[in-house]
């Protein structure tokens, strides 16, 4: 195969590690991996001429050759604790540099019918459980990052909520990078929610140092009839981290999926969310908040496919950009023929705080059915002068008034968060960021 030097490097890695990957003897899995590698060799990384990839002149991950992350686990509970002030969850899965860390994870006492396990272990011992789902929804036909992840698919979280299983407390997935300099972790998660099940997932991505590394994660979520899932993804990595996430959600009849993505860390963060409402009555809500500074670039690309009637989708993404940073939102909503009575709304609001900050917004509607209600809205702007005046006239000085308004803008998303510890943590982070030295209403 002919590829670029970097592609060939990854290909050599693949040949070298192919036989150490979990489940290597399972034929369908081996085929999935090798097809993905072929796809990657044939197409490589997306070029900046491709729609959706044109905002980075030179994607930082394309030029660099990352080594596969190492398996040893140098992190102890004490190292981790300062980064998890809200370690509230009863069940916790910790992955260090993309590998399951059993000593740091807590999985005792899960309700009946619920599985939370390492993907590598499951691939090794019970691959048949994964066959109907794994790789079926993410596909390998997307961009090179997805194919690369599938080829090197190794570890991650496997969560299964059996029929009727209700997990009342959240499952916390913590992804830690430590001493990961110039390495890449291809994390793969699979979440299967069977009929009438309910659960909440919280994903937190952390760095224990300031190294530059790359996280390439794919999460597949399959939600069966009347399943209810709430999925938080909190991106809090170091200022030099690179992060690419592909989240693929497939929804069955009357299922509910609520996502909340908060991105504040990382040098380049990209979240691709693809939702397919495949049966009638699917309901999905995607919320996002990104606040960026320095030279950060945060991108959210969503695509929602209303394939069946009576589906509802809601999107609200808010961005606050400071310094030289850039926030990008591109949302595509497709209502297929016959998906009548679809109801979709898409909103993206951006606030620019500095002269060098940039906001790019592309909310898109593609509608092939007539009896639908679809709307989208997008704004970019600065703080409202009248609101500022209102606060100033109440004896709040200008800096504080501005901080308060920015905080208020961002906290819209927080109101949608129903999981209290997550909300409190985010409120604290936001207050630290935007209410510097401002002691109003007990928020400090």
């Amino acid at each position, binding site marked *: 195969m002919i590829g670029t030097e970097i592609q060939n490097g990854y290909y050599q890695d693949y040949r070298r590690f192919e036989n150490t990957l979990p489940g290597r003897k399972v034929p369908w899995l081996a085929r999935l991996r090798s097809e993905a590698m072929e796809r990657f060799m044939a197409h490589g990384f997306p070029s900046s001429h491709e729609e959706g990839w044109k905002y980075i002149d030179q994607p930082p991950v394309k030029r660099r050759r990352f080594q596969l992350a190492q398996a040893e686990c140098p992190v102890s509970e004490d190292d981790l604790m300062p980064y998890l002030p809200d370690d509230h969850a009863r069940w916790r899965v910790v992955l260090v540099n993309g590998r399951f860390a059993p000593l740091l994870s807590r999985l005792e006492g899960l309700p009946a019918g619920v599985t939370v396990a390492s993907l590598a272990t499951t691939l090794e011992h019970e691959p048949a459980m994964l066959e109907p789902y794994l790789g079926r929804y993410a596909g390998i036909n997307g961009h090179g990052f997805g194919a690369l992840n599938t080829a090197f698919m190794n570890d991650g979280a496997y969560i299964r909520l059996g029929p009727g299983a209700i997990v009342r407390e959240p499952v916390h997935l913590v992804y830690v990078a430590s001493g990961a300099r110039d390495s890449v972790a291809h994390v793969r998660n699979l979440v299967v929610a069977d009929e009438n099940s309910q659960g909440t997932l919280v994903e937190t991505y952390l760095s224990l140092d300031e190294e530059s590394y790359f996280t390439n994660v794919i999460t597949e979520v399959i939600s069966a009839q009347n399943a209810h899932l709430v999925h938080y993804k909190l991106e809090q990595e170091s200022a030099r981290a690179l992060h690419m996430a592909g989240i693929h959600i497939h929804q069955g009849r009357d299922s509910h999926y609520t996502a909340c993505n908060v991105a504040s860390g990382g040098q380049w963060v990209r979240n691709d969310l693809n939702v397919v409402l495949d049966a009638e009555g699917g309901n999905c809500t995607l919320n996002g908040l990104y606040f960026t500074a320095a030279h950060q670039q945060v991108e959210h690309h969503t695509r929602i496919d209303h394939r069946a009637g009576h589906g509802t989708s809601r999107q609200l993404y808010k961005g606050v950009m400071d310094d030289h940073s850039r926030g990008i939102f591109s949302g595509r909503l497709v209502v297929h023929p016959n998906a009548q009575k679809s109801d979709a709304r898409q909103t993206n609001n951006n606030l*620019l705080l500095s002269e060098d900050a940039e906001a790019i917004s*592309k909310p898109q509607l593609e509608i092939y059915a007539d009896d639908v209600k679809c*709307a989208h809205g997008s704004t970019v702007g600065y703080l409202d002068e009248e609101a500022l005046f209102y606060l100033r006239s109440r004896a709040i000085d200008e800096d504080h008034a501005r901080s308060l308004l920015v905080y208020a803008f961002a906290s819209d998303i927080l109101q949608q968060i129903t999981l209290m510890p997550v909300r409190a943590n985010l409120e604290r982070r936001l207050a630290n960021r935007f209410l510097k030295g401002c002691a109003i209403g007990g928020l400090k």
Partner: protein
Amino acid sequence: MSGPAEKIRRLIKKKYPAGFVTDIEVDAVPPGLDEDIIRLISAKKNEPRFMLEWRLKAYRHWLTMHEPTWAQVQYDPIDYQDIVYYSAPAGQEARPKSLAEVDPRLLKTYEKLGIPLREQELLAGVAVDAVFDSVSIATTFKDKLSELGIIFCPFSEAVQAHPELVQKYLGTVVPYTDNFFATLNSAVFSDGSFVYVPPGVRCPMELSTYFRINAAKTGQFERTLIIAEEGAYVSYLEGCTAPMRDENQLHAAVVELIALKDSEIKYSTVQNWYPGDEEGRGGIYNFVTKRGACRGDHAKISWTQVETGSAITWKYPSCILEGDNSVGEFYSVALTNNYQQADTGTKMIHIGRNTRSTILSKGISAGHGQNSYRGLVKVLKGAMGARNYTRCDSLLLGDKCGAHTFPHIDVHNPTATVEHEATTSKIGDEQLFYCRQRGLSAEDAVSMIVNGFCKQVFNELPMEFAVEAQRLLSVSLEGAIG
């Protein structure tokens, strides 16, 4: 509902009223495109050297380009060697001095289209430049306008009479390297209108150009250039029709507007090229590049378009807001019925301080029509206090059509305020029921609701055109209701 359904079926059969052919001898070049054809076109028009060189530069650049594929439209590949790039009614080599000398068959054609050139000359109101295939056959009111220093003439005449103006402004807004179709146009363009309004002059009447494609297998490539000097004002209208034919014909025009300090250009289009039949056969491919530049402070450019014709429309009238406090506006109604496809919208580039832009787009899809709005609002770093408001509404009539919205917002300045809003819906059953209950037929009710939906845009059109547009809309919609 059998009564109204029957009526509707009858209405569907209604033919495109402008679809007749005028039988006239033509002077055409052979089909195909190479440097010789370009030299031939240039020679036919007796053009100065700089024009020919410009055309050849464009042609050589065009050979290196690829046809764009990003638009939400589908069509069979175009064979550029099968198109006749120049066709003119015979005997027009010496341009007639007055209407009396114009071939009566041509005048008849325009009369049939509802543009009686002679009457319009008498009943003061609108000055018309009539473009038939590749040449302009008549321009009315030229003398009266020239008293005020206004130049309103066919492009080919402007090249002869005012080469300094043409050379100064041609290609400064849409360079010959701009895009595939604009570059093709730069190489082969035949005629179009040229307008120059001197400083401080307010053009006393509407200027208008009526484009007609008549010959078969011919492409129309017209080029329009409008210059408004400091403090000038001009309102310009264009209308277009073509005969009904089974094969597709290409129309690739370029329009450049230049508004200097304190001037205003209002550009209105009622586009009614032949849209193809109900099976989607034939029709015009309307691939047009329109762009205006507000070069001075307080300049204003306003685009209003009513797009009801063409098999495929690919068109993005844009504004480059360079001067401080300059204003760009875009008002659009696009209707697609049967198998028509439209991918249209605008670009607003904010460069100067306190520049403002308004975008109002109304898309109506019926039958198997596909209608897309595609827009870019870009605020550059120095555009302090820039302001944009965008509203795109789509109306779906029928369950086989599609409506798409692809806005693109790119802001590099924190003091800018940019808003975009879009909705997509069908006509509510309650709305229809309300009208039906008050004795309106289903068609009248829909027609009334659609007219209401488009009213904000029609209000921007000059009076005569607004009436024309409303009528056109209801004719185009006939057969779509049910």
